[in-house]
């Protein structure tokens, strides 16, 4: 059964095969965190998925971006395309030769209310014959504000991904932001 397409269900759920496994989690504590790191990622899965909720510590009226960098590569080896809706207009943008891959937004504001949610898929992360591609769905709503984004990212490197650093641009991730890394078997 394909671990992604063959998910099945019934009114009497059987023990599902362990094709979708939790690798690690990280929750931001008091004071916030500028980044979250997942390291020593085993190469035994087919794909990776990051699931997270996040909020920025920024008190300004602008969202913070979330980015990811693989294997410590800080070179200009990343590119992206994105589709964004802000409740008023639909836009698209792209960038090349970036030093990290953009994966979403974290809403601003000091209170523990609206967090963004995100699901980031990294396919064939351990394949040494391919540059690495990711897809991210991210969004939040604040009852009168918000944004939803879908983007694709590229890391121009055929190395297997063994670590990743998820960074909040400009302002740290707020307390209660939570990140979980999963491995999907092929």
């Amino acid at each position, binding site marked *: 059964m394909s671990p992604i397409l063959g*998910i*099945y*269900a*019934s*009114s009497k*759920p059987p*023990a*599902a*095969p*362990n*094709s*979708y*496994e*939790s*690798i*690690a*989690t990280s929750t931001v504590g008091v004071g916030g965190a500028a980044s979250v790191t997942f390291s020593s990622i085993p190469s035994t899965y087919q794909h990776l998925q990051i*699931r*997270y*909720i996040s*909020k920025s510590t920024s008190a300004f009226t602008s969202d913070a971006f979330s980015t990811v960098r693989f294997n410590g590569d800080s070179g200009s080896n990343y590119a992206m395309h994105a*589709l*964004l*809706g*802000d*409740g*008023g*207009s*639909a836009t698209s943008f792209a960038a090349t030769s970036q030093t990290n891959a953009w994966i979403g937004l974290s809403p601003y504001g000091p209170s*523990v*209310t*609206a*967090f*963004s*949610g*995100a*699901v980031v898929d990294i396919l064939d992360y351990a394949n040494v014959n391919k540059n690495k591609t990711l897809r991210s*769905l*991210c*969004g*939040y*709503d*604040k*009852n*009168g*504000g*918000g*944004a*939803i984004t*879908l983007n694709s990212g590229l890391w121009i490197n055929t190395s297997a991904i063994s670590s990743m650093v998820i960074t909040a641009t400009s302002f740290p991730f707020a307390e*209660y932001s*939570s990140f*979980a890394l*999963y491995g999907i078997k092929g």
Partner: protein
Amino acid sequence: MAAGPTYEPIATQTLSSIAASVTFSSIPGTYTDLILVASTANNSGATNLRLQFNGDTATNYSSTRIYGDGSSATSDRTSTAVSMSVGIIGASSTEFGVFTLQIQNYANTTTYQTVLARAGYASGYVTLTAGLWQSNAAVTSVLVNSSGADFVVGSTFTLYGILAA
């Protein structure tokens, strides 16, 4: 690493007759995320698929979306609503739309609840939505409806739980 199944089916409902809504209740708080997958259409016309949590019918829901209709892309939002719009459902007995709803950290009692939704049906629309339920209560039930229309026979709704380490 979590022992045992990490991505588990919790319950599924397949309609053998039309229904105005579908409810999943007594949702255990033992998972990290919920995913609701639906294959469905209604018997009336293109309208919004909607969610309510924990029987909350007050104006505690809102959403921001982007959608395409085959000729243009639009982004809009709803605010202070009695239910959460999570995609556009069409009317058909044979063409079913597909909805994937991510309810992340649903059992946490600190933050409000956020939903990410992907949805679409080929002859109509494709939508991406971010929704908010202004409550920090753990989600224990989910009601799905079609804005006054009925879900058609053969519609399926499955709730999954994802458990992080």
